[in-house]
């Protein structure tokens, strides 16, 4: 079953076509890889889907609903979470507070739709509510193996852990679909293998994952499906094995010299 589909999605910046007529689809419950050389339009595609930017033309269908051009906060409440290439944490808050932020405004909970009586209630039970949210956040930190850093400032964590914290925070909102934009960028090999374990655990939770990644070993090991972009266009899709042996991909993306590496 398809959880997400884009139809003829196009995004132009002035004369540059960053995403060109892309039909991208994501199967529910699987890990889909999105690869391509720098400037292929991968992050732009992510931005169109998650509402950070509006497409020039084309459609985005999520879980049967047309979500094209909706604002990011709405899309996030419908159950799409994401992380960023350049980490976006609340650096001045602690690790556990960051995850609590993910929980406070989680899917379907609109802070502006609370009635007065609920506001009163939420005042008197604020302490309890906070405690619940705190415990929930700690559970997600356990899941991501970050619990020991719960009280550290997010900005003080090593780079790899900051990335995993961003993932934990995204997961706390219990999304149906999770986008990871270069999760392994800047990670050392042991951090990368830890990340692979975490992504595997996420898949086992039943959360559908899409990831942009340059680390081919990680992509080939972890993804069920792979889509390849080049110059804004989709040039191939298939299983890791099919992609590995796809001539277009090898020529356009991997290059002849790197053939053995892949």
């Amino acid at each position, binding site marked *: 079953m398809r959880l997400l589909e884009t139809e003829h999605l196009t995004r132009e910046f002035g004369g540059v076509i960053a995403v060109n007529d892309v039909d991208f689809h994501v199967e529910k419950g699987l890990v889909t890889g999105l690869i391509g050389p720098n400037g292929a339009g991968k992050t732009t595609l992510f931005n169109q889907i998650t509402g950070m930017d509006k497409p020039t033309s084309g459609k985005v269908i999520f879980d049967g609903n047309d979500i094209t051009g909706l604002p*990011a*906060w709405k899309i996030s409440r419908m159950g799409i979470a994401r992380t960023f290439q350049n980490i976006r944490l*609340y*650096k001045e808050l602690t690790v556990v507070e960051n995850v609590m932020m993910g929980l406070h405004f989680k899917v379907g909970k609109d802070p502006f739709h*609370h009635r007065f009586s609920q506001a009163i209630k939420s005042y008197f039970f604020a302490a309890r509510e906070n405690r619940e949210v705190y415990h929930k956040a700690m559970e997600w930190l356990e899941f991501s193996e970050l619990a020991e850093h719960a009280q550290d400032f997010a900005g003080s964590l090593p780079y790899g852990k900051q990335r995993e914290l961003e993932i934990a925070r*995204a997961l706390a909102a219990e999304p149906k679909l999770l986008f990871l934009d270069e999760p392994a960028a800047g990670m050392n090999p042991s951090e990368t293998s830890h990340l692979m374990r975490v992504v595997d655990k996420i898949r086992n939770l039943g959360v559908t994952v899409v990831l942009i990644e340059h680390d081919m070993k990680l992509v080939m090991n972890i993804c069920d499906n792979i889509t390849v972009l080049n110059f804004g266009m989709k040039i191939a899709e298939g299983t890791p094995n099919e992609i590995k042996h796809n001539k277009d991909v090898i020529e356009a993306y991997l290059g002849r010299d790197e053939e053995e590496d892949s």
Partner: protein
Amino acid sequence: MDTLTLYMQYIVNGLTLGAIYSLIALGYTMVYGILKFINFAHGDILMVGAFVGLLVYTALTGEAADPGVWTIIAFFIAMLISMGFSALLGVLIERVAYKPLRNANRLAPLLSAIGVSFILSNGAAWIFGTQSRRFPYPFANDPIRIGAIAITPHQIVIIAVSVIMMILLTFFVNKTRMGKAMRAASLDQATSMLMGINVNRVISLTFAIGSALAAVGGILASFDFRVYPSMGTMTGLKAFVAAVIGGIGNIQGAMLGGVLLGILEAVGAPLLHIPNSMRDTVAFAVLIIVLLVKPDGILGKNEREKV
């Protein structure tokens, strides 16, 4: 009157003045906290608030009503209506003059704000004329004496209303979900959007609250300063100074900065034998000292070094 009681009296006067500065400073600081932008039209919103308050009040009581129960009720009705009107005006200004410029360079919204400021003050001069009007006293004006110190009922109202407003705001920001959304947006807008927070609505709300508080400040200020189209300029500027002294972007800082500035102004001028016509220099001298000694303001956070 001996010197000590004289200065006690100055402190009481300063506290009243400071409470008004605090209310207005909150609007500057909340908007800065979220948008990193100084809303220079904020001072003129307090003027509009004062005019609306005055108009509603005189419509309810007639020109020269003697203070009584009805004038007190009418005063609070006028204040609430003025708050609502100013809140809407603040939201409207943000939508029309600032929101389209949110991604422009930082100077653009600033210039837009100065433009809005001129439109409001000139618009008021056009509609109401330039002469100043007195806000009739809704409360009996016999001072209450505590020892040798005299406090007028108006001063008590100013302080009481300000304290209540600040308590309500603190409760709102710290205890409610909307307040939490507001604090989150001030830390990082883009990330907050991904957490499912409607940042545009948070920004509108910030302008609404800031403008409503400015309206209260404007009405309270008009007991002493009268109501006229350019009344927002100096009061607004000093409230901005108060926000900077307290640490701009910090809500407690704005409250503290306002009270501190009010007291320094009321005590400092007589202490340093500064003539009344030069009183405003005190505020700006304090600003310069604070900027030299602690540029982040008293409660401003030292930016943690980012590695």
